[in-house]
């Protein structure tokens, strides 16, 4: 007991999880470095650390590879965004989705969310690598762990047929189906929304071009008619600058609220899917162990029984953790979407009102023009 407590004490994070911020991103050639700031629990100031994507991956690997954490495989791991690429190819841009927009601002936000989710997770935050990551001035070690139960490649190779494996538990059966449907829809919604935002940006750019092109039509001269026309062109150029500004705002609002929300949602649902898959694999393992134990010859019987018991125990743990995680995820999802929908609506409403004001001013100016 004492040791547990002691362990717990030394494994507790020394920062306030909700204060973690990714404040900056520095670009050096092809490398991106992120500055992470967090408030000390002791109230004596902040930690400032700089990390690259490899450091994030290191953290994630360590979290996956924790030993002696019962039911770890039932955890829905906070999803890390895909690797960023400077001057990204089209394929990478597609993968990044919203996170590839706007000079890495959304990407930083996503990393920030990742860290905050890790720091808030009751099981994960106890891992000392989290502390190291957030507080150590030296970059954490970057050795690749050999044993990685979450090696995606192996999962893909061995596992796909298992995905459809029938479940023993009603709750999980429903959840698996539901997750499948939701994941697809959310990903589609995120992709389609990205298309909308990209088109909004194109419109803004085109408006900027129009505004610039109008200046070509402005001529100097004494001719009153020419002057009148030039005035019209100048004023029209201002109008289109306004339209550009408005459209840019709309796109930014979309990106920062609903866009990021849909992106996060779809990645979290993927993470849940992975967890459910791990559980299913464990179920298969358990069923095999039971079969083996049943069929085992008396010589091997005890050994097989041991294996079976271990498998049962693990599976039970996983299911327990998984259930908690699922309930929590469903709740958090709804909260997250609500928060972002409200924010999105408010921001767009604000932008629309500003737009209306601007256009009205321009309209009055035109009407008043001689």
């Amino acid at each position: 007991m004492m040791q547990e407590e002691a362990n717990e004490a030394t494994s507790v994070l020394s920062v306030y999880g909700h204060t973690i911020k990714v404040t900056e991103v520095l670009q050096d050639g092809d490398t991106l470095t992120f500055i992470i700031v967090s408030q000390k629990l002791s109230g004596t100031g902040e930690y400032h650390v700089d990390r690259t994507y490899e450091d994030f991956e290191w953290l994630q690997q360590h979290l996956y590879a924790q030993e002696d954490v019962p039911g770890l495989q039932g955890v829905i791991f906070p999803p890390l965004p895909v690797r960023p690429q400077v001057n990204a190819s089209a394929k990478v841009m597609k993968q990044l989705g919203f996170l590839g927009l706007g000079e890495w601002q959304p990407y930083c936000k996503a990393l920030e969310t990742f860290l905050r989710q890790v720091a808030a997770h009751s099981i994960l935050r106890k891992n000392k690598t989290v502390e190291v990551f957030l507080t150590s001035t030296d970059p954490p070690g970057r050795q690749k762990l050999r044993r990685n139960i979450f090696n995606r490649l192996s999962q893909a190779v061995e596992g796909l047929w298992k995905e459809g494996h029938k479940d023993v538990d009603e709750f999980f059966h429903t959840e698996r189906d539901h997750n499948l449907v939701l994941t697809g829809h959310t990903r589609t919604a995120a992709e389609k929304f990205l298309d909308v935002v990209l088109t909004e940006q194109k419109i803004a750019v085109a408006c900027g071009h129009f505004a610039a092109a109008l200046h070509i039509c402005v001529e100097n001269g004494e001719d009153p008619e020419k002057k009148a026309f030039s005035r019209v062109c100048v004023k029209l150029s201002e109008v289109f600058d306004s339209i550009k500004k408005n459209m840019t705002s709309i796109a930014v609002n979309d990106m920062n609220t609903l866009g990021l929300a849909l992106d996060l949602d779809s990645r979290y649902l993927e993470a849940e899917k992975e967890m459910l898959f791990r559980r299913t694999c464990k179920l298969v393992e358990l069923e095999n162990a039971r079969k083996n134990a049943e069929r085992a010859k008396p010589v091997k019987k005890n050994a097989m029984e041991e294996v079976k018991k271990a498998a049962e125990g693990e599976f039970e743990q996983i299911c327990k953790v998984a259930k908690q995680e699922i309930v929590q995820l469903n709740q958090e999802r709804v909260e997250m979407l609500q928060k972002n929908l409200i924010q999105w609506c408010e921001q767009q409403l604000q932008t629309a009102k500003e737009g209306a004001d601007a256009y009205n001013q321009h309209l009055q100016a035109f009407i008043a023009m001689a």
Partner: protein
Amino acid sequence: MRLGFFTQCYCTVEISHRCLRTQEWRTSRGRCSRPPFLIPSLPPGTLSLTTRAMASSSDRNPPPFSVSEQSEPGLSDMADGDSDDGEDIFVSNSFQNHPASVSRGVSQPEVAADLFSEEAAAAKPNGVHSDDDDDDDDDDLFAEAQADLSSDTSGSSARKDLSTSSGLPSARSPADLLHTSLEQLEEEEAKDSFDVDVAVTNPEKVGDGMNAYVAYKVSTRTSLPMFKSKVFTARRRFSDFLGLYEKLSAKQSLHGCIIPPPPEKSVVGMTKVKVGMDDPSSVEFVEKRRAALERYLQRIVSHPLLLQDPDVREFLEREDLPRAVNTQALSGAGFLKMINRASDAVSKMTIKMNESDSWFEDKFQEVDMEEQQLRKLQAVVDSLVNHRKELCVNTAVFAKSIAMLGNSEDNTALSRALSQLAEVEDKMEQLHQEQAGSDFFIFAELLADYIRLLGAVRGCFDQRVRAWQRWQEAQSTLQKKREAEAKLLWANKPDKLQQAKEEITEWETKVTQYERDFDRIGMTVRKEVLRFEKQKAKDFKSQIIKYLEAMLQSQQRLIKFWEAFQPEAKAIA
């Protein structure tokens, strides 16, 4: 007739020409025999040049028969559904399509096969030929097409404001003319109240298959006494509008005027319509054309000289218009030749030493530059319109995806909110659609109109140059005649001498006439350009105001959408 890649055009045209033998004016049908090209916004007047060129190179005789008078409406049985039974389309300023009484076509049904072509940008040569005609006729000489024979307007600028006779002052020196006339014309421009309203509405498909065409209702409301009634309508088809332009362009009396060009032919567009008028791109095409035709007529009737023209009146009033068959003009002729002639004409301008020169030369440069600027703007607007359309599509797709997501969510409040969001997005798609329409119909079309108009402006400059050339040529002919006379005097041939003297007199008259013509055209051009520039600033300003009003309205609606959605978002628990 499918011509596309043939080297000679076989369409039939109706030509008024002076018989070279008898000096009488005749009309006949003939083959136009031109290479099948098209410049949609041909500067008015260049037609006559080319046709003369063609005529002189051809050596066939005109056939004796003429079929020009096909104006009597007995050919088609028409129940007159056109009188507007109490339907006043002028109630609101925006002439929307009203449910109209279905009425039959304009004139007898005929082949109106438009041939394949690309959408031609203004003034770009391409291999287009559009055939508005029917059966093959016998070969005919495409002789010199001439200007309108019956000139009501006697060459002087008969203004709409008839109280003051504002014809040309009798002073002869160009500078004098300029001074007095410029002041006068600036005054006259101020009295800008035209009492004619026209609208083009109710596009209706007439006929079936490839013979189909669209007939539009042209409605006029006026208080001018020269019209037979105060409110009247007529049904016209596209080729009628083109025919009107052809007639106006060819008139000597209107030389120097900026004659508004009609919208371009579009075989692609028309083919879509022939196939069916229901799909969105057909609807858009027809609406675009309807609006363009309306602006075209509005420009014509707001031009004081054009309004006086009997052809314009006939176009608006007459129940059945003779089928315009020489609309080939807009698609025909060796226009490469024409372009070269036009530019030659311009280069010849530099020889002139007249003091009023610099104004014309400067203006011409300005017009040229402006056309380029507008084209640049047009390109940007086109891309803007495309992006807006793209946004419509993307918004609709997104709305669907959100609806699907909402359906699969367990949490009822979230599900509901997402469904509401899907509806909001659908409404926004509608908004974007309207916005795209606004961008297009207000700006893109405005720019397109003015690019065409600038072409017409260049055309009237060309006409002036050609008038100068005619004058110069007459002078040189006169000189030759005089030299011939001198030779005859020397050679002592009294009988031929008489003829020579007669010819000299004839050419002296011509020289005087042509000089007067040239001066008159110069005056007209200056007046027209001034009027054009004023009109342009006004036009742009009023269109921009329309645009801003539409934008503002959109924004208000958008605000309402968001305000309605807000409580839904907050209700998610």
